């Protein structure tokens, strides 16, 4: 981008589109990085088809489109940015992004609705106890191993029994019985592991403790190389120290109470005995 154009941009009120095009134009094109990204989001070989409609043919064509774009940019520079950014744009929007975000919202709403509805379904042999037409809204409770000590909120629920006390999906991790102390220790470990991810949904007071583990001001636009290493280390945490850390029971109980009070989502206290790798944060 020429100096004149750049000065003009800086001098004017920059729209999102302009900022983005500017930044992308200034970015030295790295074919290596682009190909790495291509192979990441559209791997040459995918073990499982994501949905019925995302057939290997569809995925391959997306991959091809992306690769052609890489080749075009390599040859001609990133001239087509304007189109990329405005692709799919609705009237009144600056970029195509708001419509994607709306898609995301619709998906999340419907998906959560489906999950909640499924959780309400009791085994049919127990169906006789469910009053016709009753809709019991349950928070997504995952596996609630301590379910017995949490009383149901409504009378009808306690007579039927909540889903968590009846059959649960057998694929869930099962937890060996343990003392209250071990349970708290496990939750604490889990919270510590998770806290750099959930820092946004905890109240600000707890975020102060976590400030050292994550520099939020740098979060917006950060180079991949410098940022990820720090974030990896803070999140991985226990990789090199697999044994249980020292804990102060009183402090932990207090922290747990504060945490409980700060979130209505009982599900968050998912009793995972070990860190999950597959889809947990990196």
């Amino acid at each position, binding site marked *: 981008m020429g100096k004149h154009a750049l000065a003009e941009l800086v001098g004017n009120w920059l729209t999102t589109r302009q900022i983005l095009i500017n930044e992308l134009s200034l970015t030295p094109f790295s074919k290596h990085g682009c190909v790495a990204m291509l192979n990441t989001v559209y791997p040459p070989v995918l073990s499982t088809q994501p949905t019925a409609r995302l057939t290997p043919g569809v995925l391959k064509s997306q991959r091809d489109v992306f690769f052609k774009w890489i080749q075009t940019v390599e040859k001609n520079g990133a001239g087509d940015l304007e189109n990329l950014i405005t692709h799919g744009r609705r009237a009144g929007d600056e970029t195509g992004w708001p419509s994607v975000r709306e898609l995301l919202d619709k998906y999340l709403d419907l998906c959560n609705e489906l999950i909640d509805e499924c959780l309400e*379904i009791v085994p049919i042999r127990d169906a006789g106890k469910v009053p016709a037409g009753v809709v019991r809204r349950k928070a997504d409770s995952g596996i609630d191993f301590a379910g017995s000590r949490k009383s149901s909120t409504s009378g009808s629920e306690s007579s039927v029994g909540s889903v968590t006390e009846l059959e649960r999906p057998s694929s869930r991790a099962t937890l060996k019985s343990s003392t209250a102390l071990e349970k708290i220790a496990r939750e604490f470990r889990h919270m510590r592991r998770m806290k750099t991810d959930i820092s946004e949904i905890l109240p600000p007071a707890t975020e102060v403790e976590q400030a050292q583990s994550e520099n939020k001001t740098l979060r917006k636009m950060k180079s991949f190389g410098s940022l990820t290493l720090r974030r990896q280390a803070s999140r991985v945490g226990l990789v090199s120290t697999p044994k249980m850390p020292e804990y102060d029971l009183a402090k932990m109980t207090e922290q747990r109470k504060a945490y409980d009070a700060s979130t209505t989502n009982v599900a968050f206290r998912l009793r995972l005995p070990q860190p999950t790798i597959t889809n947990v944060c990196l």
Partner: protein
Amino acid sequence: MLHSRATSHESMSSSNSAHRQMFESMLEYPSTYELPLRTMYALNSVCHTTLPQPGNQSPEQLTPLGPADAAHKLELSIMVEMSQMPHQPASLPATFITSFVRKCFASELMLVDFPQTLTGLDYLKDLEIRRTRELKAALTRLEIDVDNCDQAERMLVLRYPAAAKWYAAVADKLQQVEALYTQLYIALRRWVSMLWQSLWAIG
């Protein structure tokens, strides 16, 4: 229990019923461990050889990375170590995933959290798998399978009316949610891969 076979008339006309399609479209969960996308990206980034690319006749020799190389390699070894740790196929809570993803893929484009977008994609996949799992579990609890799915509604009306209503609507909802996820899969990947580059200019 009630596996009464429908009359031939019913079963023939409903061979492509919405409920039957529902069963057929519910894919299996990944049976093998799948690396998080960020791990894959790190692996892909440090790799110095090219894979055969579509349209690329001769493999090119990519220039090795500079000072970032060491960081990548260290990151890689951490990732490999992590991937070798025992893990269990449990899902994160749906509400956590939902709030994480909404924050990561912010409404305001300039506030999108680029370093976390690959994780966001993984979380969405996790949510989708969770949804499928819960649906299968619910159908199993109702003792509905692909064979009796077309008669199931009648059976539910008698034995479990609240579920009958749910069941009547579920096939359509499932189609909708799958369509949404499909569109989202492609759209997000386009934006993530397009915008990822913008990180490199800022040190």
